[in-house]
């Protein structure tokens, strides 16, 4: 027995027979943008790790200041 809800869902997912084009298009949209966000998050972590290492290395010693 399939409920009306499931049938409607199936119809929605079938996209009038164009599911194999519509859903990959939406997937591409969200996956690529998610990749953009993820790249930023990963880069932020890496930069912060580098900066923390830099800070720990320098300790109390100040970087060369010239002005």
């Amino acid at each position, binding site marked *: 027995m399939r409920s009306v809800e499931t049938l409607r869902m199936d119809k929605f997912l079938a996209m009038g027979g*164009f599911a194999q*084009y519509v859903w990959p298009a939406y997937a591409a949209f969200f996956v*690529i943008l998610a990749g953009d966000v993820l790249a930023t998050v990963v880069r932020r972590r890496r930069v912060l790790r580098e900066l923390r290492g830099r800070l720990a290395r320098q300790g109390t010693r100040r970087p060369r200041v010239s002005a």
Partner: protein
Amino acid sequence: MNAFKLWYHKLGSPPYFYVFAGYIQPWLWTIALLLAAVGLYGGLVLAPPDALQGDAFRIIFVHVPAAWMSLFVYGVMAVSAFVAVIWRPKMAEVLAMESAPIGAAFTLIALITGSLWGKPMWGTYWTWDARLTSELVLFFIYLGIIGLYHAFDDPRQGARAASFLAMIGAVNLPIVHYSVVWWNTLHQGTTVHYFGPSSIAPSMLWPLLLMTIAAKFYYGASLMGRSRVALLSLERGKDWVADEVRGDTAHG
């Protein structure tokens, strides 16, 4: 004018921009996600199937915003690049260079969704249609800018060189489009009518507009996030970065 100058100088200062970007970023994210949720519901569920294309036309809600954004981001990048080359403020370099990957992402989306839409409409994933071809060239322009930026050891020097390339690209882009359109009419074999719905009904217009605005807010949010990271890396010697890193460690 005075208010603009003040705004320009304040936001032009990296630590101020860092704080400002961090403050508005959650708002941009919230608006983008809300608009996208409503737009998607309207586009995928509420809008009726197109008379000729059936449900395949629903690709429009991701394709058209991405295609518009690919040009919009280029416009923003070109203006920042111009400022970066002429007056050399650090912020303009950062904004231009951090816009490029986002623009490339939108261009790639426009290419993929366009070809996925093309298959049911034209019977082929790729055709040398004027718009798809221009979009492909735009993608190469973005890749060239990103590649040149990373080819330099000094990121600021790379940013200036890539900004100059972005300016050349801004001049070149209309020429490419014009020449590709001309080329398309010359070789009539490949001329295809560009897809679009058979008629623009309000039921599909408002989701499209919402998705477009959502994409703009997404761009803003992503640009703020990227610029913040770039600033931390560029200003590593500065005290405000050290404070920020310590604060970040303390928070978690």
